[in-house]
């Protein structure tokens, strides 16, 4: 498959993944961990996609869509970060770490403008929903819902196109950045997710399970080693 075609496939797939956010099912496939893996599989590099997913997921692990609140857009972050990452890898094959660092920055920005886009889509949904008051037949109702699915799909495609464009633009800048190891990138993102997770789960009550989990890995490692 040519690079252009692969990027086009990634953009269309992003639209499909975006349906998982509110529009259809909410199975969790639009979460950065899964979305980056799926997009990686489509780009021919599932393992890199999964690793990128682990780098992106912790930052948006606890963005909670409670009530009317519109949190930072984790889904837009995961999709945009992955599309920017694979666009750079497909076009110039930079080192994983360099592309991942750029992808994390793109994802951070996308989570903000994804939230703006989300509010706009919800307002657009409001316009469609007002038309629902006048209809009396189920077929018309389904048409309105299909229109909402189309809007959501287009939102995903547009976010992916924007991310791919940014990926192309920042590609020459990657050479200017120092090479940061994968372990350090993990430290930068995982620390955010683990700390905010423990605070949200209730730090006082979860200290004992935390130490049990920590010790479990040490014990397993010692048993395997000796």
């Amino acid at each position, binding site marked *: 498959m040519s690079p252009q075609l692969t990027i086009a496939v990634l953009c269309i797939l992003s639209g499909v993944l975006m349906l998982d956010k509110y529009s*259809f099912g909410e199975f*969790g496939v639009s979460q950065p*961990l899964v979305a980056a893996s799926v997009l990686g599989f489509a780009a021919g590099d599932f393992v890199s996609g999964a690793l990128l997913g682990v780098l992106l997921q912790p930052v948006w692990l606890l963005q909670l869509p409670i009530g009317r609140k519109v949190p930072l857009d984790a889904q837009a972050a995961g999709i945009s970060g992955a599309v920017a990452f694979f666009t750079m890898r497909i076009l110039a094959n930079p080192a994983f770490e360099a592309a991942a660092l750029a992808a994390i920055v793109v994802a951070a920005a996308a989570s903000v403008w994804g939230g703006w886009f989300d509010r706009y889509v919800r307002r657009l949904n409001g316009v469609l929903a007002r038309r*629902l008051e006048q209809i*009396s037949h189920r077929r018309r109702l389904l048409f309105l819902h299909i229109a909402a699915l189309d809007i959501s799909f287009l939102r995903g495609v547009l976010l992916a196109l924007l991310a791919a464009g940014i990926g192309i633009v920042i590609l020459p800048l990657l050479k200017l950045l120092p090479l940061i190891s994968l372990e*350090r990138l993990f430290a930068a993102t995982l620390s955010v997710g683990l700390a*905010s*997770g423990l605070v*949200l789960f209730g730090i006082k009550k979860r200290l004992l399970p935390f130490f049990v989990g920590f010790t479990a890995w040490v014990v397993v490692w010692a048993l395997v080693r000796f």
Partner: protein
Amino acid sequence: MGAGKVLRNFIAQLFVQNLWNFESEQGPGMTVVLSARSRKKAVIRPPQSTFNTNPYLASFLTGVLVREWNENGMEGVSSTLESSLAAQGDDLYWRVLRPTALLAGMFFVVIGQPLIGILIFLLGFNLFAQGERLIGYARGLKRGRKALSDVLASLGRMKRILLPLAGGLVGLLCAVMLFKLNLGTWVVPAAEWFIFIPFLALAFLFAFLRISPLLNLLLNLAILIILGVVL
């Protein structure tokens, strides 16, 4: 109740958040769910113009509404059930279950089993979330609003089981992270520990002060870039 009805409700429930908007919220989605039952292909709207609850527990609420539709005061009943289910459901599914399943999935990806990690997250989350969607309708239809206390109690029980598991997973991931940074040995602390541990302390500070995780991330990346340039 036949499997066909359960399946038809489940498929309709998948669209309950579609067309979510700031005015009627899940109203258009609930209209699809209620209309899916109509044999005359009519449009049936929820009792009040604004409707919002946890999407996975909307199935149970649909069952209750269908059972008690003809009784008086449906607006009040629906509103009370919506808010009770939204409070408990959002807390369980968004704050506890999804992050716990994601942490479990991330653990497997970090130790080099990406496919297992993805499957663990998807199965772990959807088994409960979509399972509730599948069985909730029949439960609501069978017992009506009397089943509410049982549903809320089962959500609370699940939360009590999952929260310690989530705490344990955070500890497990911390240990794996330190282990990986140390190139697979615990004997001597690696230099990378002196990056991860301060990052973790900084992240706790940000989390306690409720500062955006984005700022925390950008600060971490800036520190790494400066370290990369200086060292």
